[in-house]
């Protein structure tokens, strides 16, 4: 191989992966030790206080201008609804950013209610999986979504460990991802608590700085050791979430993934992203090397009997 063609090869392969080189390094740095959002706000959900009145659902519906539900918000029969052969309770979707579900845990004499909405993770999987950067974690702690750039691949829905984002599948021309946005535009930005927190008659929801909420949560556990499980769900789970939960029973009894781990989802793909610059750096040299070797060998063979060699090699790979 002459010098000229080697240069050509380099130029061509560089052109081929210029894009990936641009993308490579940034990615590898994206994850890593992460301090969190010092001023981030959050909500502490106390399952022992919630009575399943569904006022939060109603308030959210109004605040976010969502369509009226089939059944009114004071209809308790929705708690009996199950889906997919009883395997699933209600979940947030395009018409409801939050839902309240009822559970009947074995070690509790009364039913428990749990409000479900986006937990506004510190290192959101939806954000890190999005290839057009449609998600932003704001300094107030909300994870918001920009429908202007969303392509509709729904990777964020695959990635969200809490199964939160819903999608407006029925829209043909402007389908978007729908999820709780922490009332970011209308309230959070102005320092106001979100609509659902504001309305809750039981003070089951406490709004405040995330770091204060962690203290409050642990205080409650300490003052009422019999009342709560010694665990503040969301403090550490998946890198921490802005919404955190206190429960009297094991978390899997109220529909949580009991053991999601403390690693943010992005850590799962870090290994792979780390290999990208490696492949970019090693492959061109390695395969050009193979090529030169093969050329050399072939050249030697040409001096002998090419045809014979080819025949012999026929079924050889």
């Amino acid at each position: 191989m002459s010098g000229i063609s080697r240069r050509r090869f380099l130029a061509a392969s560089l052109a081929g992966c210029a894009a990936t080189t641009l993308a490579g390094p940034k990615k590898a740095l994206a994850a890593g030790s992460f301090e969190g959002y010092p001023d981030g706000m959050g909500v502490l959900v106390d399952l022992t206080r919630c009575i399943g009145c569904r006022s939060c659902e109603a308030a959210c519906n109004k605040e976010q201008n969502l369509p009226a539900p089939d059944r009114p918000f004071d209809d308790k029969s929705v708690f009996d609804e199950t889906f997919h052969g009883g395997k699933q309770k209600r979940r947030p979707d395009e018409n409801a950013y939050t839902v309240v579900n009822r559970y009947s845990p074995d070690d509790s004499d009364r039913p428990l209610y749990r409000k479900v909405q986006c937990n506004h993770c510190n290192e959101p999987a939806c954000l890190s999986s999005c290839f057009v950067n449609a998600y932003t974690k704001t300094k107030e702690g909300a994870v918001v979504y920009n429908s202007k750039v969303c392509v509709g691949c729904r990777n964020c829905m695959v990635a969200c460990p809490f199964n939160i984002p819903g999608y407006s599948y029925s829209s043909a021309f402007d389908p978007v991802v729908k999820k709780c946005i922490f009332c970011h535009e209308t309230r959070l930005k102005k320092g106001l608590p979100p609509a659902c927190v504001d309305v809750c008659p039981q003070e089951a929801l406490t709004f405040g700085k995330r770091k204060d909420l962690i203290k409050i949560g642990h205080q409650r556990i300490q003052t009422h050791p019999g009342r709560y499980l010694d665990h503040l769900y969301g403090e550490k789970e998946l890198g921490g979430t802005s919404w955190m939960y206190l429960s009297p029973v094991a978390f899997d009894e109220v529909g949580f993934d009991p053991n999601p781990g403390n690693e943010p989802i992005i850590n799962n793909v870090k290994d792979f992203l780390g290999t990208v610059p490696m492949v970019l750096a090693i492959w061109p040299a390695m395969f050009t090397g193979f090529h030169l070797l093969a050329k050399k060998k072939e050249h030697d063979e040409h001096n002998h009997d090419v045809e014979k060699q080819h025949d012999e090699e026929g079924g050889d790979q």
Partner: protein
Amino acid sequence: MKSLIGWGAKPVDSHVNEKTDQQWSLFRKLMLGLTPGQYLGQALRNPFNWILGIIFAIGLPLIAYRFIFGLSVVTHGSNDYPWGLFLGFGLFAMVPLSASGFMLGTAVEIFGRHDFEPIERLALLNGLLGYLFAVIYLLVDLGQPWRLPYPMVVSFGPAAVLFLVAWHVATYLSVQVAEVSVSFFEWIGWLGGKRFIRRIALGLTVSGIILSTLHQGALGALFNYAPGKVHPLWYSASFQWIHFFCSSIPAGLCMVIAVSTVVKKTMAWRCDDNFKDNLDRCTLGLAKGASLALITYLAIKMIGVAHDNEWGYLATGWGAWFLFEMVVGVILPIILFAYAVRHQAVNLARVGAFVTIFGIVLNRLNTALIAFNWQLYQEVPHIFEVIIAVTIFAIYVVVYRFILYRLPIIFSWKEQPQEALAAQAARPAPIKTSTAPIGAMYRKID
């Protein structure tokens, strides 16, 4: 077409009509050298076209229906199963099945295995079309398909694996267009373009390997975002991307065997002797390569199970399903290939290839659909979703056939003497060794 040839028609394989000594016009080349009447006649006589016609009659309106009324009318578009058949089959299965381009490119261009040249172009075309249709499946599935270029030009999310997939598939698609364009340039008779591609062939091949490694792997890494959702037997925190990359190798090789088998059965008139005579030998060679890759794949699958210590799951119903996938989709073809290579039983190797393809498709469907949300519930695709997936596959077959009938993929283009001479004169000496494989017929002319 066969009967027309029987009556003396001759498929176009050069610029000049042998009977009249005149240049074929582009129109007549498109018509395969037939008159429009003859062309229509042979198309209507083919029963396969009638089947295609029925599929299109049902499927095309459904595709239009999807774009007018949204995904919800043709899919079970659910918030728990955001990805259905379009991506499960169209993207996650079509892409590995199209790994053939870079596999054969590597074998021929990098490792100098010129004995695979008769089938190289078919492999390149298979790669190009597979990727193209993976993108088409994707377009049908995307909520806002017109925003497909967004990750390239409008808004970047470089920390996302999907960003890699998008960029790599897009760049690799253009690499494949360049690779396949050689046949097109021959067909339209533009030797300049062909010479240019031959000059950068090695660079194209190497960038093909890089891009393929990364995006085949990246498709697997996409599931690393959902560690809790994919059943542990199909999920491997550390090896997911290696599993996907590694299994794409037998997938690509077997797809070439499968396609060449179909081609030989259904369009023998279009294959030239170089293709027909070498096919059995090439098939066995590919089978051997595929079986080695399958053995590697089997080993790393087992390592994956052992590494995360998931042996316990093997005793469950999911374990049985996993073992079914492994035994039928991996171990059975390994045995078939081993026997076939040993006894030169080409047809057995072909059976093995089809079984492998089944296994790979099953693996991708398992990961993306069946074992996805295994703790939640089982998603069954909407019937319209199935019909649309089949329709797009039928379009793929039609485009495949359209190209194979015309471009010199499974036959060589007969250059006119003066053109060949001009090409020879214009070819710089050092390029000859590095790019000769691109055009087998050149060596014949030599």
